[in-house]
């Protein structure tokens, strides 16, 4: 049963982090893997809030082909005009460090992003045990 969490305010980012931590501990992730997926989730949840205008995170616990955690972030925001540029380190349209999106990709095993201008952005990350 996937967990669906709304991301509407700063507190929701904390809630996503706590939920991801709880799931990661359940699966038996190592401390490093836990920290990686939590941090990636934190970055993407904040992006969903700050740049997507809020959205939703879905946490799935995977069992096949091996234990893992998949988190989907969805928003109905303005979308990203150029995904490749957005993934580059140091690029930001806000006032952050510009490392969140690219950093999140480096912290997980699978990373997929689809963005349609004016319709929203979906980011799916997976970390295997």
């Amino acid at each position: 049963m996937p967990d669906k969490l709304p991301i509407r305010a700063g507190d929701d980012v904390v809630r996503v982090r706590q939920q991801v931590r709880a799931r990661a501990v359940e699966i038996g992730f190592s401390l490093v893997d836990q920290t990686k997926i939590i941090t990636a989730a934190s970055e993407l949840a904040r992006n969903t809030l700050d740049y997507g205008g809020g959205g939703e995170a879905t946490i799935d616990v995977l069992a096949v082909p091996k234990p893992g955690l998949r988190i989907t972030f969805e928003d109905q925001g303005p979308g990203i005009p150029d995904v490749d540029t957005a993934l580059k380190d140091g690029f930001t349209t806000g006032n952050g460090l510009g490392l969140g999106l690219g950093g999140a990709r480096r912290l997980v095993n699978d990373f997929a992003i689809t963005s349609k201008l004016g319709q929203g952005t979906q980011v799916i990350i997976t970390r295997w045990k």
Partner: protein
Amino acid sequence: MASKSEKSRLSDIIGTHEADILAEWLRLLLASGGDTRISRGQLESQCREFLAALREATSAGNIADTMTPGFERLRTMLGDISRSRATQGFSPAETATFIFSLKEPLFARIRATHGKDGEAIADDTWTLSQLIDRLGLHTMDVYQRSREEVIARQHEEIAELSTPVVKLWDGILALPLIGTLDSARTQVVMENLLQSIVDHSAEIAIIDITGVPTVDTVVAQHLLKTVAAARLMGADCIVSGIRPQIAQTMVHLGVELTVVSKANLADAFAVALSRTGRFVAKSKAPTSTGTMTARRPATL
């Protein structure tokens, strides 16, 4: 005017049977959960005052609108009761029960008064039901608001309490951070630290992040800003308490902390001491109290 006669009728019913209604209401309240948070005497006086105010309001005010001046006293009283219930730790249901349990004794009196006049019973019951419901909603509004006030106050208290700046030695400050580092907290942290740097003429500030569960780019950015601000005040910062898993994650994220960092507070303190021309040495004979031995300044 139907409402005119209805309201005076309700007021009459309450007035005539006030003692009975009060007794019945109290019995219901006590039966719904003998509560130790509020004494019987207190509850009884609350009920009596409330009933008197209700009689007054129904005779003077416009029953259809509880926002009218006639209901002012009743609303204030209900608000006070609700607020005190909220701070005493009553649940929403328990708080709402106070007003809703009044329905039963009042409906019984309406039935008894009108005898076989079904229409009058229905009319009065409906009017009264609406009135009590509106008062119930008001109770919940106040309850919710006072709970939120409590939460907001605690939030501020936690933010201030959890960012103490401690003096480790002359010119050396430590700032142990615990919990989530968001923008609002960073602001409090920064203000506390900068003021303490001035107050203690500190040369070195150690920021310990052992208690920060997640260090993402936003936390890193907040840390870097705090360090930069401290530097402008003439104090160097050392970041300590970076756990192995956090270090690995930060490297993958691509965050570079352009600041001296140490694994734990003890090491950071040792660096701070040596930079200020001091060192900790072991005395030859261990003192009998034992715990003040050197090289473990963190236990001081």
